[in-house]
């Protein structure tokens, strides 16, 4: 094939791809026209593939789950309407800060409300914030709506009482026992609040900031001088 014809075909295909369908049909020579059509089909076949691969790269961005902050704000707004006195201090878009008093009713509402339906308690853990403040944090997830929310409840170390949610989520049984074991947060209404990891007769709450190791345990001496690892 001569270079002229090849150039003609290339130009026609480019035009056709840009939207001018007659560019190929108007080629007078039959053989050249057929070749141009074949080249156009080939080009068209390659083109969508490129678009597909572009789509794949861009898909994860589009399919990301709805930003969790929306859920937090939605739950926070509903909570403020239903339990106006339970929100603790200023709220933000990452978590919900609650007072311990109505926690059981709120938890039941969060679980049963069809809009939220938090049927899964994924984690409960404790924090010692210092200055005599302890905090229990709950991470809820909804299997139905695929959204999640974090609830934080702050209590004083002198009276660390938080209502237990063990009867709502069975998994809270051991979560709360662990938080009790490490921080001494008293989950009122828990059916079996014992230490879970440490022995029953252990003294103190080891993950609190003011924890001091006991000197002996059942006659076993705990060495006081601990140097050599720095």
């Amino acid at each position: 094939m001569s270079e002229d014809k090849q150039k003609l075909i290339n130009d026609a295909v480019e035009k056709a791809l840009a939207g001018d369908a007659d560019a190929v049909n108007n080629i007078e020579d039959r053989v050249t026209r057929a070749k141009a059509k074949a080249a156009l089909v080939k080009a068209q076949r390659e083109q969508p593939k490129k678009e597909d691969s572009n789509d794949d790269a861009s898909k994860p961005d589009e399919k990301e789950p709805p930003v969790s902050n929306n859920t937090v704000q939605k739950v926070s707004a509903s909570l403020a309407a239903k339990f106006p006195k339970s929100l603790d201090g200023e709220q933000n878009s990452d978590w919900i800060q609650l007072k311990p008093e109505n926690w059981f009713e709120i938890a039941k509402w969060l679980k049963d409300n069809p809009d939220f339906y938090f049927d899964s308690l994924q984690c409960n853990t404790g924090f010692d914030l210092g200055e005599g403040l302890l905090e229990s944090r709950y991470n809820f997830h909804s299997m139905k709506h695929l959204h999640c929310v974090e609830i934080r409840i702050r209590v004083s170390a002198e009276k660390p009482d938080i209502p237990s949610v063990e009867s709502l989520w069975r998994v809270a049984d051991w979560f709360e026992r662990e938080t009790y074991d490490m921080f001494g947060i008293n989950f009122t209404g828990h059916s079996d609040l014992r230490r879970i990891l440490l022995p029953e007769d252990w003294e103190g709450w080891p993950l609190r900031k003011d924890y001091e190791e006991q000197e002996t345990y059942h006659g076993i001496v705990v060495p006081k001088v601990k140097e050599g690892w720095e």
Partner: protein
Amino acid sequence: MGLLENRFDDNVVVEKLDKLLSWARSTSPWFFQFGTACCAIEMMAAAASRHDLMRIGIIPRSSPRQADVMIVAGTVTMKMALRVKKLYEQMADPKYVVAMGSCATSGGPYWQHGYHVLKGVDLVIPVDVYVPGCPPRPEALIEGLLKLQEQILEGRPLTRKTG
């Protein structure tokens, strides 16, 4: 050898009963597998086919009643320390203890900040051989067990110490 000469057939070895006993003990120290942490994996590897502890007469047992050696393989927490002591007491004499790994010898990485870790198993039971390492390789454990065998071989169970 005047007294014993020509009194026995061929292929008879004459030796002190004391030495025979300690030889028998040293060649079959069955160990109580007491794996409490990652060292247990190395202990299992030592007992498995590649390193094959059985070729030096060492067999893992799962009960303290059937074991001569307790290999404390891993971190011993305060909660576990009481159980270690109880299980050691359940073993029949003669009994030996190998402390395997940093945790069992000294508390290891939990020396300074592990409020719940026993700082060395020798605080609750007497230890015969310490095997350092974190965790020690099976070769190190085998070396420790060979040392223990030497130690047992030197023992004289029937000789009463005087004074």
